[in-house]
């Protein structure tokens, strides 16, 4: 437990005393948090640290094949946390990407925490930008900062936060560093104390941009209040069958499903 005391010295006003790990169980949740990210960035480690569950973490990509669920309480609110399979993108039709994408899109978690590997930030940002097209309630957790430091890599989280328009927290989850700040950011976004203005893709070629604009207008009239019309437009432009069916059936109107019903098949 020496790692924990090390974490408390690194933050002055340490709220870790308010974290209660709830593991698995039947509960009424105030908020649902999704955990997304590239494979092997330490998502499961973050998950374990927050929930107190001991899901085995292995140092190889693709370890999490089933969606793990757990919970924690923080500042009097109950959070359910769903560990999605690690993916490099959300644009293809492989089963794990579909599980991750469908959950963020249709189950609309209150906060999506994207776990990124500080040592490979550029590649990880590809996924971050895609997630930000789908949801505007996101927190970026730049994990493995300790490892990055050993490799001589420093990530300016302050600057990244300004660029992306969402809270960015540097963590070393294996050493439990930065978890308190991460919890605070999750709670801020979930409660609406912090409103995100996420970065959206802006360098598409003009023709594509124009096509998206046309479609977004129509989609927004059909589904008022849809937070990710741009993403839906992009997907149906690409001919994504799942998304075309969703438009036809008006699936975007439905309220959030119970997470257990959304188990992947």
């Amino acid at each position, binding site marked *: 437990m020496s790692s924990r005391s090390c974490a408390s010295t690194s933050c002055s006003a340490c709220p870790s005393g308010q974290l209660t790990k709830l593991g698995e169980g039947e509960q009424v949740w105030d908020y649902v948090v999704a955990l997304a990210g590239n494979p092997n960035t330490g998502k499961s480690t973050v998950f374990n640290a927050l929930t107190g569950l001991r899901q085995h973490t292995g140092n190889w*990509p693709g370890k999490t094949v089933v969606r793990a669920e757990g919970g924690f309480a923080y500042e009097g609110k109950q959070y359910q946390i769903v560990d999605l399979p690690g993916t490099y993108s959300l644009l293809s039709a492989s089963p794990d990407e579909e599980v991750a994408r469908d959950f963020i899109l249709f189950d609309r978690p209150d906060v999506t925490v994207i776990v990124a590997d500080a040592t490979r930030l*550029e590649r990880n940002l590809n996924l971050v930008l895609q997630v930000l097209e789908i949801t505007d309630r996101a927190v970026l957790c730049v994990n493995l900062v300790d490892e990055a430091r050993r*490799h*001589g890599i*420093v990530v300016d989280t302050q600057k990244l936060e300004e660029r992306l328009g969402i809270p960015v927290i540097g963590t070393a989850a294996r050493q439990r560093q930065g978890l308190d700040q991460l919890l605070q950011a999750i709670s801020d976004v979930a409660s609406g104390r912090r409103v995100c203005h996420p970065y959206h*893709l*802006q360098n598409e070629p003009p023709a594509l941009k124009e*096509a998206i604009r046309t479609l977004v207008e129509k989609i927004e009239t059909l589904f008022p209040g849809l937070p990710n019309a741009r993403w839906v437009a992009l997907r149906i432009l*690409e001919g994504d069958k799942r998304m075309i069916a969703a438009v036809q059936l*008006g699936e975007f109107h439905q309220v959030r499903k119970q997470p257990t019903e959304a188990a992947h098949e």
Partner: protein
Amino acid sequence: MNNRDSNAEDILAQAASLRWELGEKVHETLMESIFEEAAGIANDVVSHTGQKAKVWDRSLDWLFTSRLTGFPIMFALLAGVLWLTITGANVPSSWLAWVLLDTVHPLLKQGAAFIHMPWWLAGVLIDGMYMATAWVVSVMLPPMAIFFPLFTLCEDFGYLPRVAFNMDALFKKVGAHGKQALTMSMGYGCNAAGIVACRIIDSPRERLIAIITNNFAVCNGRWPTLFLISSIFIGGMVSSPLLGSLVSSGTVLAVMMLGVLFTFGVSWLLSNTMLRGEASIYSLELPPYRPPRFWRTMYTSLIDRTIYVLWRAIVFALPAGAVIWLLSNVTMGGETLAVHIIHWLNPFGVLIGLNGVILLAYIIAIPANEIVIPTVLMLTVLTTGTAGVGAGNGVMFELSEGDTAALLHAGGWTLLTAVNLLLFCLLHNPCSTTVFTIWKETRNLKWTTVAALLPLVMGLLTCFFVAQVWRLVAGGVTP
């Protein structure tokens, strides 16, 4: 409702025509702009100060994955882990046996006699259930408590993906998916877990191949059988203990490698017959090396794997102990049920270089491979009527390695029996949990049946073949 439908169709029609205008490059264009913008942002916020650690990672990668050193290092690491397990488990195993079987068992018996427990109840509870469980604990706990943490340390360090990288080309050659190396590695812990892990393979064809061949990875329930039989019969042939332990671990390694060969062979066979197709292309990221946090790894692998596996073994050993005791104490026509069954199975068993006891043990152990060895020993005592060991039918006893060897020799075991038991341990039907998992993952009766019976048929054929050749070479000496 109507309004929305028409609107939705309208949107989709427009999307279709726009797609036409934009050409087929929408996906590529989009990916390109994502990459470009991600690179732009990363460039802004990431600064590099040194390259020292990267050089270290690169040279390790070269060492672990180059043509020259990749495979030798893999074998050496594996052999090292197996050797540590075999030599390290000896002392605690006999210590546990002394406590649980030598000390606690007589106390329980005395206690039962003191409270005037009926003899049959004491038999089922103490001589059956308690003894089988105690045996499983003393045989399994020490090797598992050494093997799993060592394996987990390699895993946490980041070595596993390098193994997958080394094996990738081989799997591709036999028409299977490169990630099968990972699911196979999981199988060395538990086949059921390995089969669930096959979900990481996208193509249904390659996934089925990985599921069907996962049983060729020796699971933790089978390691103790390999360790014990190799030590007694193969390592025991060498006089020096150190050399003996090296020979034993070499034998276990050979069985494991044979399993890998079967994995490749059967994968090749399947992808050229029932599951024809090309291997799909995928990318495997080699994660950075991470110094494992030693104590944390020890703790989690002990809780997650060792205790979990041990618990499962105990749960199955309890009823199995009762069944064994009943089989060896309920008589029919003057002989116990066990003797009847063993005599009935024996001709076939001997034909394939095994015996009736081993076959019955494998039937009793269908729910869990862990109890094969305890069952074999209990049944051998019963059928040979070995004097001086144990106390009555179906009773487990304290046995050192030497005693076990003497007992098995008295039961008519030869080197051929041992070799074929090692082979049969590798090649037989998966345990019931694994078969059920295959059913859950495939939802297909045909493939579940294939996965369950294929290894069994292969095992019977292999043992038969080895027995015939052995007897020919040995000049007609019947074992």
